[in-house]
């Protein structure tokens, strides 16, 4: 989902940067509030960031014959709410842009928008909806994390289609083209991300029920 450095025209780059900015400000305030109100959960917040750090470093083969990576942003979004992940995701993307030449500074706004904003909000929305409808916790967590992963890549495909509409088939043609590169490849990876997120939530319920209670996450669910 990393749009490479310099690969969005300046206007697009600036627009996505501007779109991401309010979410980053809101996210910074959320991080400050979480650390103030739930000091006990600080280490868990850092761990949610760490989860995104690991998962976005793992390039995994897919049935389409190409490789891509999960994002790991769903876990933090369902534990702490989606806005903190704007900041944690931005840290991951900045690390990769500066040290790995993966993504870039000019495309940072666009990449933050797909991975650190849309992904987490989709995770949060799906999780809340599944729980409200009475879905079991594991199913809600799985759907939240995997759909967030997919949504991130669909946003990337859309961003590229908007910037580079196909000369013949236009915006829709470009969307199909970039969608087939990203979205199809991502399906098995989204499944992996969903399963790993369920695994971590299981471990948290088993060993860290107090921290989850502090955040009022899945109250009453025990091992």
């Amino acid at each position, binding site marked *: *989902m990393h749009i490479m450095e310099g*690969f969005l025209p300046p206007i697009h780059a600036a627009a996505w940067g501007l779109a991401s900015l309010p979410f980053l400000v809101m996210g910074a305030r959320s991080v400050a509030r979480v650390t103030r109100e739930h000091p006990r959960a600080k280490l868990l917040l850092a761990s949610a960031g760490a989860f995104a750090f690991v998962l976005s470093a793992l390039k995994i083969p897919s049935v389409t014959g190409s490789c891509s990576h999960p994002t790991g942003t769903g876990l933090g979004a369902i534990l702490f709410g989606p806005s903190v992940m704007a900041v944690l995701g931005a840290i991951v993307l900045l690390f990769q842009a500066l040290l790995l030449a993966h993504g870039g500074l000019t495309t940072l706004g666009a990449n933050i928008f797909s991975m650190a904003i849309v992904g987490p909000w989709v995770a949060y929305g799906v999780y809340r909806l599944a729980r409200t409808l009475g879905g079991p916790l594991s199913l809600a967590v799985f759907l939240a994390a995997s759909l967030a992963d997919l949504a991130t890549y669909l946003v990337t495909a859309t961003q590229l289609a908007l910037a580079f509409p196909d000369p013949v088939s236009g915006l829709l043609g470009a969307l199909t*083209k970039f969608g087939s590169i990203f979205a199809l490849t991502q399906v098995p990876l989204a499944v992996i991300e969903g399963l790993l997120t369920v695994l971590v939530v299981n471990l948290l319920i088993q060993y860290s029920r107090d921290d989850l209670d502090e955040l009022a996450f899945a109250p009453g669910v025990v091992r």
Partner: protein
Amino acid sequence: MRRVNLWLVAAVLVVAVLPLILPLPRGLAEPFAGADAQAQAAITAANPDYQPWFSPLWEPPSGEIESLLFALQAALGAGLLGYYLGLRRGESQRRKPDSDRARLDAQAVDAHD
């Protein structure tokens, strides 16, 4: 719960390894290339005039250095996550009265009496 977690790990391994075993789709320029690079190639193919207007400030000087930094990123994340889970696991076991540790402590007290 432990059994469920083992199955989850097994399922992850199957989904990750399966693409390596299944026959590759035809017409691939390079098997298991990165999707990001493919998107970049698609842009350049459809818009030959497009010139990236900014280049990375620093690039890993070789593929080895790049994989070093990716490994470092994964290690930092996994390290912190493992530290957190290990810490909380230790705390929860010390609190549980029926844990081995508590039993051992109780035996030690008995031995003193």
